[in-house]
């Protein structure tokens, strides 16, 4: 596979806050690549630099073989982008928003009309094409923005928090669109998200970002397998006896807390019957037993010692500082 995005030691500093800290990775052609992390981790900053909207403080990156600082226009032609906040003209119709984009990107009229028709069909907005965007729901706007981002046939599509603020059903639909797009159009998709399920469900590979640094990068499966596999939790009146009874080779780790025993192991479903049989033989009562497959949330937890939600609460303060600084810089 060929590399379409190459990032080398990319760094962005706002005043004394390091938003992106020496980030390096490559993205292959045709991948759906996820940048996962809490709000304020630096995901949008990375995306903004790759989209040439923000100048890096140091380091470099190439997009479709072009340098993000020296070949701005070439990079901009190669990418489609769906911003985190909406960027449609409410007072124009869906078709007019598409048409505006097509003209801005110099697509000849016949080709433009044909592609708009085709893309509106793809995102199922054909019957609403002449309606004003201000009458659209959040999900429809997002679909229109995705269609618009594809109009000039970009090599890479950036999606910045594509499902933020959408209801679960709409989110599921959007995931389907995105997966279909990557398959049918063969384009590379890079998305940022702070939804674990989104990264897990959609992405071929995921980079987990925290405090501006890449703390892990792999396929969702490898990331989850890497933190010690599954967890079986048993509630019982005799937790100590369970720890004694289950000293088996396939148990990688055991912990006992508040009448509960958590057992880490690989492929839990294969060992459940053995666990139950062993405990039954030793006459140890079981109140409840649960199997948990690890999520990317657990991966994040194991790398940072915090859940994403806790991390977001922590970074809020520094986010505000950053915004204040941004505002002052404009003056």
């Amino acid at each position, binding site marked *: 596979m060929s590399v379409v995005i190459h990032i080398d030691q990319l760094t962005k500093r706002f005043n004394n806050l390091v938003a992106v800290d020496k980030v390096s990775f490559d993205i292959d052609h045709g991948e759906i690549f996820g940048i996962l992390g809490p709000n304020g981790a630096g995901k949008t900053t990375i995306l903004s630099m790759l989209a040439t909207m923000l100048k890096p403080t140091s380091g470099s990156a190439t997009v479709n073989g072009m340098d993000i600082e020296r070949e701005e226009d070439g990079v*901009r032609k190669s990418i489609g982008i769906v911003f985190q906040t*909406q960027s*449609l003209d*409410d*007072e*124009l119709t869906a078709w*007019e928003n598409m048409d505006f*984009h097509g003209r*801005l990107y110099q697509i000849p009229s016949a080709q433009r009309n044909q592609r708009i028709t085709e893309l509106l069909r793809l995102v199922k907005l054909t019957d609403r094409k002449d309606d004003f965007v201000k009458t659209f729901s959040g999900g429809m706007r997002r679909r229109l923005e995705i269609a*618009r981002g594809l109009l000039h046939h970009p090599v890479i599509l950036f999606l910045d928090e594509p499902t933020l603020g959408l209801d679960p059903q709409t989110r599921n639909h959007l995931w389907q669109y995105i997966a279909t797009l990557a398959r049918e159009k063969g384009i590379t998709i890079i998305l940022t998200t702070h939804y674990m399920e989104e990264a897990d469900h959609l992405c071929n590979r995921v980079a987990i970002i925290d405090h501006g640094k890449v703390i892990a990068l792999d396929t969702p499966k490898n990331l989850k397998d890497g933190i010690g596999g599954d967890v079986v939790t048993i509630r019982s009146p005799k937790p100590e006896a369970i720890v004694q009874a289950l000293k088996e080779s396939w148990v990688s780790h055991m912990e006992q807390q508040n009448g509960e025993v958590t057992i880490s192991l690989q492929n839990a479903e294969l060992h459940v019957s053995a666990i139950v049989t062993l405990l039954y033989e030793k006459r140890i009562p079981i109140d409840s037993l649960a199997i948990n497959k690890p999520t990317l949330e657990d991966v994040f937890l194991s790398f940072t010692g915090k859940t994403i939600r806790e991390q977001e609460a922590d970074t809020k303060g520094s986010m505000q500082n950053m915004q204040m600084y941004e505002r002052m810089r404009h003056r």
Partner: protein
Amino acid sequence: MILNVTYTIWLRTMKRYLRLKSRIIGSIGMPLFFLLFLGLGLNSVVTIPGLGQNYTQFIIPGIVCFMVVYTSVQSGIQILWDKQFGFLKEILVAPVSRFAIVFGQTLGGATTAFLQGIIVMVISLFIGLHTVNLIGFLIAFGFMVLIGIAFTAFGIAIASRMEDPTGYQFIMSFVVLPIFGLSGAIFPISSLPAWIVPITLCDPLTYGVEGIRYGLTGISQINPILCLAALGFFAIVMTIVGAFLFRKMNY
């Protein structure tokens, strides 16, 4: 290629303008009342010394001018609303020259301002504007377009330095109204106290008002050629300043 982009931006501005009929009608309210109250109301009380016109005749070019300036500054500030609603990102991330964008925005603003001016002019015909001749109208049109370009660019320049549209009212009250008030739109320059006259002559809009007045009534206190030169110069400078500041505008 640059023209394509400029045309695209211009087209969007025109679509938005023509679509909102209520806004067009609403924006004509204020100049209409100026015409009625000031123009007709003060006509019998005020005489214009030495110009041989009645006050209605005198004030009509000023009100036309007001409409053009007001609309164009508003159009320039439109980019702030685009920023607020996110659409500016869509424009700024496109692989096109920012000059082409700012040029389209300026022309779009100037066109809407010109059309608004025409509406006021047509209404004036019923209130007491005596037409001179076709050439006179064309001269007035020319000045209206120049004012439109200059003040849309002026609005863009201001908007490029502002964060959000909350300061808009401030700009209108403390920048646009003084420029209008000093321009000799509602009183003749010659009847001002001597110390204000130089300030009036520094106001670029003075030359716009006088130019339109020359076109519409055939009489002006400043030579129309001088008016054309001064206003034209201001329009070019503002376009350059607007383009320069817009180029440095952030997302």
